[in-house]
Structures are given as structure tokens and as C-alpha cells.
């Protein structure tokens, strides 16, 4: 009983380990591969991204003739950002997005 007292005191005094996520923002580490973003103006229409994508998540938007990424199929690997010569596609740190179906 006496043996555990120092542990109890140490646990009482230390900070909680849990992140307060929805109330406080959490920043992932540098270089985190989150949601890819597309700057449409920079695109030179070389379609390297489509060739690099391992699971065919990138297609061509018919109206603007720029790439669009199907986020439901993306593996967030960053191959398209690496292949893009003009940095049109970059990986952001954003991970808070979801698709909700309302009946």
C-alpha cells in the first residue's frame, strides 16, 4: 500500500495524456500527408498525376479541364504531388473532412 503512494502522487500532479481534440486544434507533424489540394490556375494539363496515381482516384473535370481527386478512393500517398511539375497538387495537413449522407 505504501509502495504505490509515490506513483499515485506523481499521477495526480502530471498533465493528462489525452489530447483535448475537438475543443483544441491538433497540428500533425511536418510533412503529414493529409487532404491534397489543387490550384486550378497552375495546371499545365500534362496529366502526370493521373499516370502516377496508384488507384485511379484522379480524373479530369469536364468543364475546367483540370484534375479532380476522388477523396473516397485516394490513398493519401503523395505520388501525384511528387509527379506534378508545377506544384498544382500539394499535400496539406488538413484531415478534418467527411462525407455525410442525410436521408
Amino acid at each position, binding site marked *: 500500500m505504501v509502495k504505490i503512494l509515490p506513483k499515485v502522487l506523481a499521477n495526480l500532479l502530471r498533465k493528462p495524456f489525452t489530447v483535448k481534440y475537438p475543443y483544441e486544434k491538433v497540428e500533425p507533424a511536418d510533412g503529414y*500527408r493529409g487532404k491534397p489540394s489543387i490550384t486550378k490556375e497552375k495546371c499545365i494539363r500534362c496529366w502526370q498525376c493521373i499516370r502516377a496515381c496508384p488507384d485511379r482516384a484522379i480524373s479530369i473535370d469536364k468543364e475546367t479541364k483540370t484534375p479532380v481527386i476522388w477523396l473516397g478512393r485516394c490513398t493519401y500517398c503523395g*505520388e501525384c504531388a511528387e509527379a506534378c511539375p508545377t506544384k498544382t497538387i500539394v499535400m496539406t495537413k488538413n484531415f478534418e473532412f467527411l462525407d455525410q449522407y442525410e436521408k
Partner: protein
Amino acid sequence: MTMVIPIGPQHPALKEPEYFRFEVKGEEIVDVDIYFGYAHRGIEETFARRNYKHNIYLSERICGICNICHSTCYSMAVERVAGIEPPERAKYVRSLILELERIHSHLLWLAVAAHQIGFDTLFMLAMRDREHVMDMREIISGGRVHSATNAIGGVRRDVTREQVPKLLENLDKVERSVNYYINLFQTDRTIRSRCEGVGVLTREDAIKLCAVGPVARASGVKTDIRVDDPYAAYPNLSFEVITETDGDVMAKGMVRLREMVESVKMVRQILKEMPNGPLRVPVDLKIPPNEAVQRVEAPRGELLYYIRSNGSEIPERVRVRTPTYASAPSLKPMFVGGTVAEIPIVLWSLDVCFACNDRVTLVDANTGKARVVTMEELRRWRS
């Protein structure tokens, strides 16, 4: 009267979505039969339809826990087929993430094993310490689980000098708690009474049934691909192969825990001795007809890739042999003769990702009526 207890089939890893049928006589298990295939996705066939670069990401998604082993093994096999040698620094980065993966996988094993024997405090503690390793992986690879670090001919991401202090700091935390867990495992009454003498795999059975990895090492078989067939930076690293002689759950746990200490040492050595230089070499992915075999020591044992190329950008055949697939036949001698209450921990002692198997049906052999009990109920039966 024998009863049949089916367990399954919710099961995650590649070819190990097992569905077990235990035949029990009272409390004693007489026979066990394993059904595979619930998570069979047909990956080997899909490998032969995509090009070499895209296949890296497919191989990574064979298993989420040991994804780096899969992608490293695949990339090294393709490099061997194409006859190219990755740069030295790339080899060290690969070894670094492979060892981090071993630590996080073994910590996950410890956590779930503690949960299976009803020691939930240890479950929470081990999962807490696992987060330090996940942070390190996120710093290095940019993703908590899937690393996407490997490329054919090297690696895509570097470990910069600014990242090293943070990594070493986390490593110290991990090492401290691993030493604590080793002490705990050897002295704690709950763990010892649940693990000692349970699920014994003898040395003869381990050799006969071709067990691999920690399962074989716990039975006294000295097998480790890092020594037998060195790859990446392992020829330059110093470590010892951990073996135990008892072959029970305790021995399997101790092998994994002591391996973590070795891995922590190895990560330190890698961070210290990492050479400078380029990260990847350019590769022509039109690979002439050739074939190669590559083996990697994954956290669960020997992982084997066989690749045959045919002159195009698409491989002719990729064969994957995962460690649990090899260890599955040795489940039978571990179970037979044991009791029903031992099922969860013995099954998990093989590290088969049993975490989400939570439902068991009892079929009475005489009446044929089925009754569903949960795993929680099974755990309590012993007391």
C-alpha cells in the same frame, strides 16, 4: 459429448481472416480446424495487372500493421529483379522504419495480450506508449500507419537532422517503459498464472510445422532472416537473436519484449551511423525477363516475395507468403489439450490480429441448438 465452438469470422489481415472450429470435450480442446478466406481479396492476381510503381501501394495495403515490411520486401524484390542497388542512406532509412514498426507491432501485441488475459491496465499503458512510436513514424514518413516511404530504387523521404532530437527523446520514453514491462512480465502474478505453461509449442513441432518468427524463436529455434539472409542495413548493425526455450505464451511474450529492447538499440545505432548521400537512384521500370526471391523478417516472422518479370512494366507473377500463413499450422499442437478459457490468449500468442474477433457460437453436438456467447464471457469462465 463433444461440442463445437466456432470462432470468427471477423478477421483483418491479408490471408488470415480465420474462422476456427474448436471441438471440445467439456473444458478440454480435442481438435481445431481453421477456415481461411474471409478477407481474401485476390491481391496476387491484381498484382499482375498493375505496373511496378503502383504495386508498392497495393503491397502496403496487404496488412496495415506490418505495411512497411511488405512494401520494403516488394521494393527490394523488384530491385533484385532489375539488378539495381539502392543507395546506402536509403538502406538505413528502410531499416529505421522497419525497426520502428517492430516496436509498435510488439507493443500492440502486448496491449491486446494484456486485454485477453483481463489485465486492462496494462492494455491502456501499452497503447499509451505505442503512441510515442506512432509519433516517430509520423515524423519520418508523414503518415501514422501507411508510410508510403518506399520507392523502387530507394526511399522517398529523408530523416533530417532537425528530426533526430525529437526521435531520440521519444525513444528514451519507449525504452523506459519497455524495461518496465519486462520486469512486470517476469514478476506479476496475474500474467504468470495466465501465461506460464499455456499453449506450448515444442521445438520438434515448431521445426516440423515450419513455424517462423517469434513463435519459432520462443520454442528454441534460432531463425531470423535479419541474420540468415541479411538485407537493407542489417549487415552493419549489431544485435542479438533472442530465443527462449519453453515455447509457452510466456516465452513468446518475452521474446517479443526483449526484441523491442534490441530494436531500440538498433534505432539508436542507425540514427548515429546513418551515412550521407542520395536517397534514390533512377530506375527504368521496363524490366527484362528475370525472377527473384526476397525475404524480410517482419514482426511476425519470415515474409517472402517472389517476383517474375516479363519485359514489360507489369510483373508476370508476384507471390506473397505472409508470416501468419506460415505459422497457422502450428496452432493445432498449441491448442489441443488446453482448455476453452485459454483460446483467446493462445490464439493471440501467435499474433494473428485477433483483436476484433469478439463473438463465439456454442453448438451443442446433441441438440444442434446454437447459443452465442461473447469473448468476455469466455474470459470469465475460468474463474
